[in-house]
């Protein structure tokens, strides 16, 4: 039996929370789906030791307590058909139908291959933050943070808060780009305050510009890294290396639904209008999947989507705040643009597809993701190309290919519950 809701929201980060809050206030019956156990998304992920950030906690609690809310944690969307989604959690499959669907599926890290990136102890930068908040043991561990953008600062602060010895932050952008970025921050006072707080927290952590981790070494776990910087190559002994090259939108579900996408560099994002409407009727998108814009942008877009999906008008001041928040994303992109050498760190024998252990040289004779997949199994493993697909697109090898159901590995029992046309007939909303 399919459950029907006025609004179904996929994703419980800032965009999803704001959308849920707005839609509930408008009297809508809302179903709220997230793959994680708790609301908050990545940026407001609940810390097993420290809880949620205070602002997030009160709003999440308010939304979850609402009598018109149905919260579906640890649940993933497997397939979609007409106005229904097929969902799966650890044990069960479930179907929900919607009058309006709000996609707030957020972003993930851009993880790029280099020799040794498969070693235990090497993670993404945001990944280390997520793992630390899950209770990953960091006390006394020697941690190096590297990659691109302000996420590195946040990751370093979280690692330090969990007792790590952060040996250094290695930013790939040059000193001028970072300083120019810092000079634009006055336009977003909240961001400036955040940067100042992080700077103070990390006062004793070296911050280096123009650096790239070119190799990680160890037998069965990370032991040493090599960092290539303006003053040559530095070898650093460490227990944990966290490398993230920024974020890319999670567009798989939007793509499968048929929403029009645009490209930012090598990565797709969902095209929306000023009301956060996608190209598909009754499907809205808000936050990072509409282009990386940060928490404040996600929050405003979620609110707009929640209001629009319930038929409310959007006032001009909300639109104005939104445009201002989006401009921050442009500043970020400009100043932390990837140094071309980052795309050349992988050597011929570096594994690109971590699921199927496919090396870069194995892919040399293919010009598109689909033929490479058929011949080499690259992208055919459990992650379904989420890591290698984005990496190969960024490396300029193949463009991303399409997405077909199941969107995540699914049990046969779940697939047996796919909606069929006959079950739609006679359905009363």
């Amino acid at each position, binding site marked *: 039996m399919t459950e029907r809701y006025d609004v179904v929201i996929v994703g419980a980060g800032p965009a999803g929370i704001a959308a849920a809050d707005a839609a509930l206030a408008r009297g809508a019956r809302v179903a709220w789906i997230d793959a994680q156990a708790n609301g908050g998304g990545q940026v407001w992920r609940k810390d097993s030791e420290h809880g949620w950030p205070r602002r997030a906690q009160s709003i999440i609690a308010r939304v979850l307590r609402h009598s018109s809310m149905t919260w579906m944690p640890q649940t993933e969307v497997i397939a979609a058909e007409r106005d229904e989604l097929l969902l799966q959690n650890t044990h069960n499959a479930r179907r929900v139908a919607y009058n309006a669907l709000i996609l707030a599926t957020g972003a993930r890290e851009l*993880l790029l291959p280099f020799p040794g990136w498969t070693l235990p102890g090497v993670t*993404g930068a945001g990944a280390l933050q997520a793992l630390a908040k899950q209770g*990953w043991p960091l006390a006394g561990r020697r941690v190096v943070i590297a990659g691109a953008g302000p996420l590195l600062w946040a990751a370093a602060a979280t690692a330090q808060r969990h007792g790590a010895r952060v040996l250094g932050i290695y930013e790939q952008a040059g000193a001028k780009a970072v300083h120019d970025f810092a000079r634009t921050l006055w336009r977003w006072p909240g961001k400036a305050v955040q940067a100042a707080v992080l700077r103070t927290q990390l006062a004793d952590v070296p911050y280096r510009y123009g650096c790239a981790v070119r190799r990680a070494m160890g037998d069965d776990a990370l032991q040493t890294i090599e960092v290539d910087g303006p003053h040559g190559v530095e070898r650093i002994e460490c227990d944990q290396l966290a490398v993230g090259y920024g974020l890319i939108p999670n567009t798989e579900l939007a793509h499968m639904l048929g929403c029009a996408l645009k490209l930012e560099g090598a990565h797709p994002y969902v095209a929306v209008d000023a009301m956060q409407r996608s190209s598909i009727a009754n499907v809205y998108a808000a936050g990072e999947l509409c282009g990386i814009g940060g928490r404040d942008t996600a929050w405003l877009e979620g609110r707009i989507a929640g209001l629009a999906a319930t038929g409310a008008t959007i006032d001009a001041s909300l639109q104005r705040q939104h445009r201002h928040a989006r401009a921050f994303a442009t500043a970020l992109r400009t100043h932390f643009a990837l140094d071309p050498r980052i795309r050349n760190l992988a050597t011929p024998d570096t594994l690109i597809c*971590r699921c199927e252990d496919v090396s870069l040289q194995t892919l040399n004779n293919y010009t598109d993701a689909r033929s490479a997949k058929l011949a080499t199994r690259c992208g055919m493993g*459990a*992650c379904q190309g989420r*890591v290698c697909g984005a990496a190969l697109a960024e490396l300029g090898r193949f463009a991303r290919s399409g997405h077909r159901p199941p969107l995540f*590995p699914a049990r046969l029992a779940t697939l047996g519950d796919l909606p069929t046309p006959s079950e739609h007939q006679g359905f009363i909303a």
Partner: protein
Amino acid sequence: MNTALIRIEIDGQALDVPNGISVAAAIARAQRPFRRSVSGQVRAPFCGMGICFECRVRIDGIAQQRACMATVREGMQVMTDD
């Protein structure tokens, strides 16, 4: 915050862990391996958010569970590297 300890088993070994942590964090605390890749390499969590599938293990008899997405529960049985 939540400092209550609960008992789980990882590869048959009992382990007391703080309530609310992820299975991935518990495996790391037990210093156990996560899985081997198709060519036999040792792998461990990489993305921390359910995208990369590098941390998958068997939890309470159900294979291919992402350890970073699951929260520990009293009496949980985790099998790694199988």
